[in-house]
């Protein structure tokens, strides 16, 4: 369904990518809209946006995996680091990153 930017609410999921008049990507299809993305759309003069109808799940192929908690994020980061995850400094980085990614997502959803 197509909504005007004023009707958007954080948590809705994009059906189609949002691009500026110059065709620059602002947000990909399948991503969750946040309060911040609504502000960005307004700044760029976006008027209408296609979102998924409520109740329809985000397609697995188009939306990135959204781990619920810090541990989930940490597991994924460790998997991407391979052997390097054994390094004590990188371990600290990954732990701090999991905390901050979690906190940042929480803030965006508000």
């Amino acid at each position: 369904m197509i909504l005007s930017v004023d009707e958007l609410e954080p948590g809705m999921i994009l059906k189609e990518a949002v691009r500026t008049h110059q065709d620059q990507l602002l947000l990909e299809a399948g991503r969750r809209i946040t309060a911040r993305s609504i502000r960005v759309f307004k700044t760029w003069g976006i008027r209408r946006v296609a979102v998924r109808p409520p109740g329809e799940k985000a397609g697995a192929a188009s939306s990135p995996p959204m781990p619920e908690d810090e541990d989930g994020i940490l597991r994924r980061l460790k998997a991407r680091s391979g052997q390097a995850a054994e390094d004590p400094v990188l371990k600290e980085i990954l732990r701090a990153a999991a905390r901050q990614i979690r906190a940042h997502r929480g803030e965006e959803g508000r």
Partner: protein
Amino acid sequence: MARPALRRLPPIEDLPTLPRTVLRITERINDPATSARDLARIIAEDQVLTARLLKLVNSSFYGFRRRIGTVTEAVLMIGFEAVRSHLLTTSVFDLFPPRSPALRRGQELLWDHSLGCAVGAKAIGTAMRRDNLEELFVAGLLHDIGKIVLLAKFPAESEEVAARVAAGAAILEAEEAVLGCTHAEIGRRLAEHWNLPSPLVRAIESHHPPFAAEPPEEFSAVVHLADILARVLELGSGGDDRIPPLDPAAWRALRLLPAAFDGILASMLTDFDDIGSFLR
């Protein structure tokens, strides 16, 4: 294995040029005798740059209470280095218009990765209490400029390089085998062509271990860590999604404590959203 796509570096005429105004601004900022008014005069000759600068200083990113109406005032309010880094940033983004939808996606991810490194380098510099934060920002932004050139000119080979890196190969070796030159070499040549300050040129040339100097120069070490942090936070993509090992010599050169990571990563996430909304 197929023959490398390039036998030598591409000739300088094949590399993109920055707008003349931005080159002049870069030159003038290197000259200590330049005043805010001199700089404003050059910027004002270019309507697009003027509009961008005024939009930026009047945005929530700076949050000044009153409206800034003139370029001279804008230069005075945010400083020479910030003017240069913002104009350079927006102009460099314009240099590589995507040629096809398939390429566009890869380019956008790479730009996002570069922006992630830029905010990372600035946040690391802040934690180290450095005052050349804008230069560090530009170093992060442009560190992979050679990759952007390669992706635009040799998309298939760039994919092959990314696949080899994902399988564990070192990036510079993979590029040498597939392309016959590295993104670091092309980046250095471009940075020299654009008259960028020499610490920046050297950071673009040497941001992957093994570094050109031992211990690595500060800019190289900062960009190396910023690259890892941007990958960890998944800001864009550097071509593959591996988180590479942190080089011990680079880590020692930075003299940071692990306790600094939370602050650095938090400001990267916030700055990335704020600055990204101007550029995209």
